[in-house]
Structures are given as C-alpha cells and as structure tokens.
C-alpha cells in the first residue's frame, strides 16, 4: 500500500493522482468494508470464540447457523479438510480452525489487541492457547461417559483445572490478559461456562470453587465482561441438547 504522505506528487497529472489516491484508500478501507461471514453453531464454544473476537474489535459480520447433521454445500466447500465449524469467510476467502481464525482477525484488525505485543509475552500466551486447544476436547467426555470412563474423564479434567490454577493464573491478575480479557481468556471459555453444563448433565462435580479458587474467580470475572455476557449461549438450552445426546449415546445397544 503506498504511503500517501511521502509519495512524490510532482509532475503527476491530476487524473493519475486521483486514481492513485482512490486505490490507496480502497486498500485501507477494504478490510473493513469487505464482507465478513461466520459459519457457526449457537452452542459451540469454538463458534463463540470467533463471535467474541469480532465483537471486541467492532467488526460487522453476517452469521450463518449451520446444521451439523446436514452440512451445507457452503461449509463443505469452505472447509473440505475438516468439514467443521467455525469457518470465517473474509472477502470470499475461508479461514478454518478457531485459533487460526482468531490470529487472522488479530492481524487484519489490530484495534483492541488480543495478544501481547512483546514477543516473549506473546510466546507465553500462545503456549496457554495451545494448552487450551489440546485439552478442550477432553472436557466434553464428562457428559459422554459413564462408570469407569466417567471417573477417568473427571480425573483428567481435574488435572487440567489444577494445572491452570497452579501454573497459568497469576495471583492478583484479573484475567490472563491483565485488566482486560485477551485470546488466552477466550481460549479457556469451556472451563468458564460449558464445563458447568457438562457437570450437570453427567451429575458429577469437578470444578469445586474451594479446590480451584483462582480459576473460580477468573471464571466469574470472565462471564461478567459485557461482550461475553451478552453473547453466551443459554446454559439451560445447552443442557437440554446435551442431555438428549447423552441419553442417545448411553442407550443400551439393541441386539
């Protein structure tokens, strides 16, 4: 993109100057004006992560609810490798995997930064985001299992919470991002909201406030942030869906 201030305008004719100016402005405006679409599902934490990032940066977008039992041709075209939501489409180009999407949003719209600027602090943030990404798929096992498998899932979940409590959260810091939430807080959203629903569905308690006091404090603070609070799927509605799923999964197989 040309730097209008330092460009040498001498000797340029007026028509050429106008064209150069319009092209430059167009390049500056186009990330904002180009259409942003999000393919997601209302109860997915991965989908919510993208919504929060877009809203925190004030980016308008078109939301498209996907039916995962009947995936749209658009979803299959935009994410042929994983066939999953969320998919962000910017100016017709798809970006897949929620963390990849969030980093793209961060780099394309730098206002209200969601990652530290210092390379070392950013590396620490990315470490915790990877930790969350690796461990998040284990937490829903709580509502999908029973008996010994459930006990094992609960043990794994407890270890995850313990690690975040001991190593991830710094005493006195309100959020992973300091005074404001950042991409690390967003990455741990399942712990803050969905975990409680999984526990209810399974009839088991893992996230005990007295065992994980810092994490409990953090979760309450996280859910009180206006953008999060106003864009969090209703726990009762998630409960209803997951309870049905659990019943289907654990139903005795007919001979």
């Amino acid at each position, binding site marked *: 993109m040309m730097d209008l201030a330092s460009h040498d305008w001498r000797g340029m004719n007026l028509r050429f100057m106008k064209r150069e100016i319009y092209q430059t402005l167009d390049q500056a405006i186009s990330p904002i004006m180009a259409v942003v679409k999000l393919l997601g599902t209302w109860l997915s934490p991965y989908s919510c992560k993208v919504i929060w990032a877009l809203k925190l940066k004030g980016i308008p977008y078109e939301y498209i609810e996907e039916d995962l039992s009947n995936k749209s041709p658009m979803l299959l075209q935009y994410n042929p490798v994983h066939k999953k939501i969320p998919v962000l489409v910017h100016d017709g*180009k798809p*970006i897949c995997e929620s963390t990849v999407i969030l980093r793209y949003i961060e780099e394309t719209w730098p206002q209200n930064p969601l990652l530290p600027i210092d*390379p*070392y602090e950013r*590396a620490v943030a990315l470490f915790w985001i990877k930790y969350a990404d690796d461990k998040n798929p284990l937490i829903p096992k709580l509502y999908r299992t029973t008996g010994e498998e459930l006990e094992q899932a609960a043990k794994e979940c407890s270890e995850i919470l313990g690690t975040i409590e001991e190593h991830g959260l710094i005493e006195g810091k309100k959020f992973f991002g300091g005074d404001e939430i950042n991409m690390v807080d967003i990455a741990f959203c399942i712990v803050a909201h969905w975990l409680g629903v999984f526990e209810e569905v399974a009839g088991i308690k893992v996230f005990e406030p007295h065992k994980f006091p810092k994490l409990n404090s953090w979760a309450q603070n996280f859910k009180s942030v206006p953008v999060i609070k106003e864009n969090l799927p209703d726990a009762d509605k998630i409960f209803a869906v997951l309870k049905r799923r659990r019943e289907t999964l654990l139903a005795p197989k007919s001979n």
Partner: protein
Amino acid sequence: MEGGVVLLDFWPSMFGMRVRIALAEKEIKYEYIEQDLRNKSDLLLQMNPVHKKIPVLVHNGKPICESLVQVQYIDEVWKNQAPLLPADPYKRATARFWADFVDKKMYDSGSRVWKTKGEEQEAAKKEFIGNLKLLEGELGDNLYFGGDGFGYVDVALVPFYCWFYAYEQCGNFSIEAECPKLIAWAKRCMQKESVAKSLADPEKVYGFLLQLKKAYGIE
C-alpha cells in the same frame, strides 16, 4: 543462565528438529543440551513444569515451550533474516492451518503405524497415507509449502521425513510409491544445510524405534 540461546532437546524428536532448523535458518548460535527423558533433569522440570517435555528454548534465561510457538518466536525476534512466515495475513492463516494439521494428524497416525499390527495397522497406514496425500495436494506444483521459498509449514513437516524409513520398515510399505511428490519435496528440503544438519539419520531413528518397541512390549 543469563543471555544467549539454549535448546533442551532429544536427538530423535521431530519437534526438536523443527527448532534446530529455525535456529539454523536464522544462523543463531546456541547451546544444545541433550536430555535423558528416562531421567529428566532438574533444568528440564524447572523450564517446562507443565508438560516436562522437550524441546524447550531458553532465551535470556526465559523458557519458551511448544515447538511451533518456539519457531514463531524465533521468526519474530530474528525477523531480519530468512523469514519463515509470509507477510500477508491470509497467507499466514493458511500456513498456520497446515502447520496445525501436521501437529494434529502426523504424530498420532505415524505412531499408530508402528504401535499396531494386523487390521489395526492397515487402518493406521491408510490414515497416515491419506494425511500425506492431503499435504501433497496442498503443496501442488510449488517447490515448498512456503511457495518459492522454504517456510513455516516446511519446517513443521520436514522432520517427519527422517522417521519415514522407520515407519516403512514397521508397516512394510513404501511412502515414496504412494506420495512421490512429497518425497521429492523432502529431498529438495534436505539440500538445504539447515535441514540436513538438523534431521537425525533415518537408520539411527529406526534403531531407536526398535528399542522403543521393546520397551513398550510390542513385537
């Protein structure tokens, strides 16, 4: 341990190799400290208390963990030489997507090839080759995943190449027969000094894998 760059690593680790390649690409001098993973050092446990794993990159006394985080850190701090990630945000997103794919799929499907037998192994081989074919498709006619230049996805994937011989021996199959373009890409990468010096010898890797199998009680 103030100042300088230290790498805690284990010679056959594909993840450690990624960091060795990135450091070599940027011509960074560093101290390499081989770790004994059966008897983890106090240093390792102190530097990576969460996972207790290698590689750990230590810069100015501060640890960075997770190989792709380390590669991105190296790329950011030593940005004036051999850039690994492209400048354009969309191309960066594409590179991160495929590096993430390598992380999610390659290690697990490769491990299943040597850990299983019979029908399970056949399924594992099929999945492993399927993943490689997807990567081949992404490579297309480019010299590297980074386009004309060696880049982030190349760094993420090429270390697995020195494990291919071991997988082939265990699974009794030829990766080159199934994915010739990918092998051509790997050999092209091996022409680079940074890659050739960082990857372990495939025969030694196979020897190490045989020891691992014994330890796991796998025939």
